[in-house]
């Protein structure tokens, strides 16, 4: 669990209803003093991802998305908090649960939705789908379907940053399950050996498909994964965007100063199934409901915003409407787009003609 519920909340007999969510803003939050504009920005970014993912789920249900679709719902605070601590040119790489990372990096939702639905206007020309999306412009190095394989790749991106002396860092996201892959440790070792500007983010949503984190490792506090490589690590409440931002700032400062890599374990939770086809036999509905009710990253910020008196419920509703419209537009755009031409089967395999 991310945080023990307070006595008051655990005494409740019924799980809180969606409308009457009572979210505790933790004292730790005060570590990062966000301005009102910053809070509004995080709120907007997180809500945008949530609405986008809800739509993706619907589109999948309607048979418009092929293969698999891994939603980011519940984990929004992580990418939003981290993105806020980066600067232009910093690189991002992640696994297949990547829609949120792309949106946070500022990539056009139309291009993402079109890709999910396999359309020619998608960011990978409709040939990659949800797992294989890239944006060189935004230094987003994918979208990878092989669990853990992105970690050495991201380390190589960090190597290039150092080699070029460009002061940029590489943010490498992977899951709790991925953290058990051997190549992750190989990457840790080299990243420290050469003090590469790599920020390793373990998105510990507590399950790898149906396997709970403690059923897959003898030491489930993953922030210690770097101990034997001399990489410092820290446990962060990944449901709290302000804490994520605060810890990102510190880590980024450390890494940019040339001290080498760092690991942040983001404790988080995915509300939906592993992918859209998940029988969810491995956890209870109550467990999910409890996380949503007590730790929701978006509700936490909403609560703060409303308490501050600087924004009204009405204004937040307007914002939600605006985001929903963007998402609906992306779905319409995708559905109105053509599928790739059959000739696309042969494009971008090797350089055509003389290299």
């Amino acid at each position, binding site marked *: 669990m991310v945080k023990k519920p307070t006595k008051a909340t655990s005494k409740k007999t019924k799980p809180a209803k969606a409308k009457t969510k009572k979210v505790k803003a933790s004292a730790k939050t005060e570590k990062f003093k966000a301005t009102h504009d910053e809070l509004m920005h995080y709120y907007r970014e997180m809500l945008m991802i949530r609405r986008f993912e809800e739509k993706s789920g619907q589109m999948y249900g309607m048979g418009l*998305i*092929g*293969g*698999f679709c891994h939603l980011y719902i519940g984990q929004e605070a992580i990418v939003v908090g981290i993105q806020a601590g980066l600067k232009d040119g910093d690189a991002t790489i992640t696994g297949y649960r990547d829609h949120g990372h792309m949106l946070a990096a500022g990539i056009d939702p139309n291009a993402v939705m079109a890709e999910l*639905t*396999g359309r020619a206007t998608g960011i990978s020309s*409709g*040939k*990659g*789908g949800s*797992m*294989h999306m890239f944006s060189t412009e935004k230094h987003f190095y994918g979208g990878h*379907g*092989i*669990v*853990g394989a992105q970690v050495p790749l991201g380390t190589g991106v960090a190597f290039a940053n150092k080699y070029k002396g460009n002061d940029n860092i590489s943010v490498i996201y992977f899951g709790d*399950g*991925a953290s*058990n*892959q*051997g*190549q992750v440790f190989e990457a840790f070792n080299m990243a420290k050996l050469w003090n590469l500007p790599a920020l390793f983010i373990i998105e510990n949503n507590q399950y*790898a*498909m*149906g*396997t709970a984190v403690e*059923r*897959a*490792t003898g030491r489930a506090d993953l922030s210690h994964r770097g101990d034997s490589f001399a990489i410092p690590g820290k446990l962060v409440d990944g449901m709290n965007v302000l804490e994520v931002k605060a810890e990102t700032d510190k880590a980024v400062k450390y890494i940019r100063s040339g001290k080498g890599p760092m690991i942040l374990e983001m404790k988080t939770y995915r509300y939906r199934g592993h992918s859209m086809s998940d*029988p969810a*036999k*491995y956890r209870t509905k109550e467990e999910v409901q409890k996380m949503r009710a007590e730790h929701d990253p978006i509700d936490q910020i909403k609560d703060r915003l409303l308490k501050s008196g600087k924004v009204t419920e009405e204004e937040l509703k307007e914002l939600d409407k605006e985001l929903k419209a963007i998402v609906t537009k992306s779905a319409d755009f995708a559905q109105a787009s053509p*599928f*790739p031409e*059959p000739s*696309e*089967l*042969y494009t971008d*395999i090797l350089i055509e003609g003389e290299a």
Partner: protein
Amino acid sequence: MSDTKILTLIEAVTAALDHEMGLDKEIVLMGEDVGKNGGVFRATDGLQQKYGDERVMDTPLAEAMIAGLSVGMAAQGMKPVPEIQFMGFVFPAFNQIATAAARMRNRTRGRLTMPITFRMPYGGGIHAPEHHSESTEALFAHIPGLRVLIPSNPTRAYGLLLASLRSPDPILFLEPKRVYRMVKHEVEMNGVALPLDKCFVDREGDDITLISWGAMMHETLLAADQLAKDGVSVEVIDVATVAPMDMETIFTSVRKTGRCVVVQEAPRAGGLGSEIAAEIAEHELMSLIAPIGRVAGYDTIMPYAKMEMQYMPSVERVVEEAQKVLKYV
């Protein structure tokens, strides 16, 4: 006395595992979510409940380790059955399969055997890209010391998996996931294994031989139906045990028909179809009346969703190629 059950291919896999686990305590299953969840495709459904978590083990996400561990277990006489969740995830394990499992018997001059059955779903048909859909059987068939089996239907899945579980050799057991729930067979639950080194002649005919394996057997048989309507007498061979391959059955057929088409889902270049064609050309050139035909996937990376349909060889493509070969004089 044995009963029969009406099973899908995936249920036949479960049935064979269950049957053999009941007889042989050395058999253990392992893999990602194979235990508590019964596997992502449910191939091991119910087996942990029946045999316990010491024999049906959920492993961490670590394919290199899963394969390496299997080699060590087999060296002590155990019979591990690791599941690689999708064939596309086998590459971290490739090293241990290719450089340890396949060679241990030879290296120890027969002192150690490697009774490992690496089970993995493979092939297209679920609209997912790349590693979730590709057919890379040729990569493994190329490695001496490995057997590669591909059942095309429930009966063969049951019989070939039993054979595999009883074999002292390391075996890649590739399950065409498109067929998992596509057809049902009445399967005799008699514990009788099928041979590990024999092609199956599924239909006898005199005019042309169609050769395939795995999911493509379905397109191939449909193509044969269509050709039969035009009065063509078609022989159809399911290779099934793709490595080592029973060329004799194929030669015998080609000697009779003089014409053949090989159908594979994998990309064309360097695939098993090339090997079959080369063998026929080398040994049966004089029996051939027409050049050997091939229908294959394209030499490209398995595309996503709708484009998958353009990639996969269709019944029409098989019929067309067969007609071309038949017309040749």
